[in-house]
């Protein structure tokens, strides 16, 4: 009864993950195997001692009775002693066999019982291994475990520890969110003031250059703050990262032009060239979509050598590769002329905080959030980002967003 209740709550694949089924040398085996082995060895020793004692007592008793028989001839007594000795041997062998058999049975039974007893422990281990704070473990409903006192205590301590960890993780998240948020107003003011300063036609040339330098750094800072905020927002909404209300119609061609303008401003050494710009609209979040484009443009510009160009396209496509859904797609393509992406890195570039290991000839900037955030935003709009290395040189990022009906 208890066993089945626990088994139901076990996670499929758990045994494989914990490698509990693999047969190991007995002494290095699982706790249940080792406990059973020690128990059975003790049991076997006791049974063997008992068999010896029984053998000795029985034969002695019979021999005493034989000698006490009056009127028996010497030959009869010899015969009697022989019979007693044979019977005693059979008895001893039988007892030893019986003990070993009993020990084996006890071993199997003991393994089964202890395993059942230890199952909550295995579940706890599995939880610890796979824990990633989402969905919040301490907020999940849990049934009272039927288990030994020690295991229940362990479980309780683990939960208390987890609660403390969760609180501190939440506090950290809230802190990052609050700081990023508080940074926005001063950033707006700073950027606005600097941009307006630059509008002044009477500005000294040297001063203008310096202010433009400041402006570029400020825009980088705002980009970073925006990515941090989106990251915090996505973390807080696990497992359904970014929720986007499709209320506003976004003009994708204007969005691309604005993103290209902002990106071009940050880096004048690489030329952005829009070659296709279909007039497309979709329902989504314009701020997030612009952030997506800016992150990918930043990435492309980082890896494109000075003097080269990046080609931008926006067009429709009807079939997205590897996607069963048959609908109209808006496709942004960003083709850079950088060194391309190393095959080892290719599957990982959209992971959070992933940065390529290979030292690049061009400075690698960012904190490993840009592409991760970009993929989150694409997912939030039911789209995806595909990357490929071009046969000649450079790589091409395509953002596929469904246009809806």
């Amino acid at each position, binding site marked *: 009864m208890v066993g089945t209740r626990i088994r139901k709550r076990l996670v499929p694949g758990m045994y494989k993950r914990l490698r509990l089924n693999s047969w190991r040398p007995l002494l290095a085996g699982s706790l249940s195997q080792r406990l059973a082995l020690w128990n059975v060895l003790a049991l076997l020793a006791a049974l063997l001692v008992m068999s010896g004692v029984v053998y000795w007592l029985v034969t002695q008793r019979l021999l005493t009775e034989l000698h006490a028989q009056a009127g028996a001839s010497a030959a009869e007594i010899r015969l009697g002693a022989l019979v007693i000795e044979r019977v005693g041997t059979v008895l001893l062998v039988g007892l030893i066999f019986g003990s070993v058999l009993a020990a084996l049975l006890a071993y199997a039974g003991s393994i089964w019982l202890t395993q059942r007893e230890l199952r909550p422990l295995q579940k706890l281990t599995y939880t610890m291994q796979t824990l990633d704070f989402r969905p919040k473990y301490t907020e999940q409903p849990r049934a009272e475990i039927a288990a030994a006192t020690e295991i229940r205590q362990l479980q309780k301590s683990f939960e208390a520890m987890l609660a403390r960890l969760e609180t501190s993780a939440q506090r950290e998240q809230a802190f990052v969110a609050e700081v990023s948020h508080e940074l*926005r*107003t001063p950033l707006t003011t700073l950027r606005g*003031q600097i941009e*307006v300063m630059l509008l002044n036609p009477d500005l000294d040339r040297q001063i203008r250059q310096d202010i433009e330098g400041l402006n570029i750094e400020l825009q980088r800072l705002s980009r970073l703050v925006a990515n941090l905020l989106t990251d915090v927002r996505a973390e807080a909404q696990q497992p359904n990262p970014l929720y986007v*209300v499709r209320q506003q119609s976004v003009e994708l061609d204007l969005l691309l032009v604005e993103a290209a303008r902002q990106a071009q401003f940050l880096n004048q050494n690489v030329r952005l060239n829009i*070659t296709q710009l279909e007039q497309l609209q979709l329902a989504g979040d314009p701020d997030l979509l612009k952030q997506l484009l800016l992150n990918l443009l930043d990435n492309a510009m980082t890896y494109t050598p000075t003097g080269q160009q990046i080609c931008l396209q926006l067009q429709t496509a009807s079939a997205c590769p590897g996607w069963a859904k048959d609908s109209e797609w808006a496709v942004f393509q960003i083709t850079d002329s950088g060194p391309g992406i190393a095959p080892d890195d290719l599957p990982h570039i959209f992971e959070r905080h992933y940065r390529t290991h290979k030292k690049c000839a061009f400075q690698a900037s960012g904190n490993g959030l840009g592409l991760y955030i970009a993929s989150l935003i694409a997912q939030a709009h039911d789209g995806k980002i595909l990357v490929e290395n071009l046969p000649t040189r450079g790589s091409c990022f395509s953002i596929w967003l469904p246009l809806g009906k």
Partner: protein
Amino acid sequence: MSQILLVDDETVITGFLRRGLAYKGYDVRIAETAETALDSARDFPPDLVILDIGLPDLDGHEVCRRLRAGGDSDLPIIMLTAKDSVQDKIAGLDNGADDYLTKPFVFDELVARVRAALRRREATARPATNLEVGNLRLDLAARQVWRAGQLIELTTREYELLELLMRHKGQVLTKEILFERVWGYDNEAGFEVIKVYINYLRSKLKLTDQPEIIHTVRGVGYMLKL
């Protein structure tokens, strides 16, 4: 000169916005409270309102609703907000804002939005007339284009490009001017785009047998003439 009413209680922000918009040729009046904003909306009167959500006396959403209720239903309103929560955006658009910008925004982007909003207003306010060049006719009221008696379907950007060319028929328009006027930005990234759109227009205007009406002036730009 277009008049812009700027409603925000943060003097640093209004300070640079007023100066920047003045550089761009707009007449700006500042209101720091909702009450003065509603007064100014009556006696200034603005062609466009830039409205911050966080005001000391009233919520920006409420001001937006009252401005809309107060008569001018076409008055373009651009909301500024430091909050980027989904609910805020929806509330802003529900209450009648035409557009919103999340802080920190880029000043040039604000100017582009202002320009676009004013252009839309101008387009609706303008007395409806037709532009005609040969057998090409553009109906400004219905935003329809006819050639040789046949209706031609154009996208918004194609229409705006054609309208611009028709208003300046016989003049050469540079790619810079076309891109700035139609897409709202002065950015050389888009020069290729102009070529693409001119080609869209040409193929649509050609119908089956009509002569070329948009001409390329090599190294300069484009010109519409018979």
